[in-house]
């Protein structure tokens, strides 16, 4: 199982506080050989973002174009469906980053 309902449920409150927060890309890479659960999404960019609060996070970059893959690009935290669940598992929503 990719993640369990209990772990998802524990994480929810924290995820809520991050929606809409802005930050900038510190580092980026393009994952071309993914872990099993992420195969349908590959290739996709993974970024380290520094939020304006100073907190750093790692996440997927979404709704991106080539020109967005630069250090310093401003992004916002959005909530997206993880899409790693199978047909019977509970759904997982998580923070990803979208270029502003």
């Amino acid at each position, binding site marked *: 199982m990719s993640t369990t309902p209990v772990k998802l449920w524990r994480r929810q409150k924290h995820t809520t506080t991050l929606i809409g927060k802005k930050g900038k890309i510190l580092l980026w*890479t*393009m994952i071309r*050989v*993914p872990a*099993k659960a992420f*195969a349908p999404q590959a290739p996709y960019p*993974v970024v380290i973002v520094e939020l304006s609060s100073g907190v750093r996070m*790692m996440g997927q970059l979404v709704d991106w174009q080539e020109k967005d893959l630069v*250090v310093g690009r401003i992004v916002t935290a959005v909530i997206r469906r993880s899409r790693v669940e199978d047909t019977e598992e509970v759904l997982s929503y998580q923070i990803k980053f979208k270029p502003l």
Partner: protein
Amino acid sequence: MKIHILGGATTKFGELWGVSPRDLAREAMSQALLHSSMKPKDIDAIFVGNMLSGILGNQANLGSLIAEELGVFVPAIRVEAACASGGLALHTAINGIRSGQYKNVLVVGIEKMTDHSSDDVTTGLMAAGSDDERSAGATFPGLYALIARAYMQEYGVTEEDLAGVSVKNHYHGSLNVKAQFQSPITVADVMKSSRIADPLKLLDCSPISDGAAAVVITGENPKKWHKKPIAISASEVASDTLSLHKRSSFTSLSAVVKAAKQAYAVAGIASKDVDVAEIHDCFSIAEAIGTEDLGFSKKGMGAKDIAAGKFTLGIGKLVTNPSGGLKACGHPVGATGIKQIVELSEQLRGTAGKRQVEKARIGLAHNVGGSGTLAVIHILSTL
């Protein structure tokens, strides 16, 4: 108390389809005992370094499995620290002897990766990272790719410069019959290999491998067992944040800097005194940064120095990764840390044949877990 390395051995590293984990353990252990003039009953404890057995094969409890293979039911302790499992197993074994409880200890590093799909292995290796990193869809190469990007940005280093690491290690590997890859490659070969996680390409990355390595170490008079024992001058460990994004630097592994500093101090030497080193090149960038963190190159110069031949056998004074490193020799995760020790022992004894580094007196092993979460540094010296 002085602790010495007696005999050691490695199996061939590679895609060993017909060889089971138990076969690997038996081969490495029996050879290490033979080279130590010992029988299994002479061993007081076994330490096992392994990362993926439970994750991929659902086999935990490895201490007992290895004891069963050895045929003596002595204390058996399994140690895990991702890719530093081997080095940490040795460190733990050393402390077992220092405690006074054990005298002669067998340390085995072992990994069987090719029984599983590369998908499962990619997923399994991310057990070395954090939940945040896994949910972000990061892979192990992805984490080091982020480090590579930071390094290339900060120091103006190119992908071609980094490729020099793999080129050097394949050259060394071509001289090692136990290595997974024994043919040299060029920078052009690295540049045209397929991209794994930008900017890292296939030939920037160590392979998926099977293999085992074992050493016997002793706290009593080593000459009783071996004509040329090797002294362990330092065994130091340091850790850092689990997540890459929480580190204070993306271009240096502070766990390595810390552990190396401690190790040099305990051994009473400086980096310039090291003659031969086995550096943890899980990815080309890892060796570039490791070379700097260990004090062998100035900051930002690691990749360029390697590419210029500064650490190549026959060219450089200090030779790094004469075994072929993780890239060419192979990286059966838990085995690597012990393989490094076996290689260094042979170098210091003058028995490394075609790979022999001239007048090697002091050796250093650099074994890193995860993206720099844990570093184990061993310094070995001839008597």
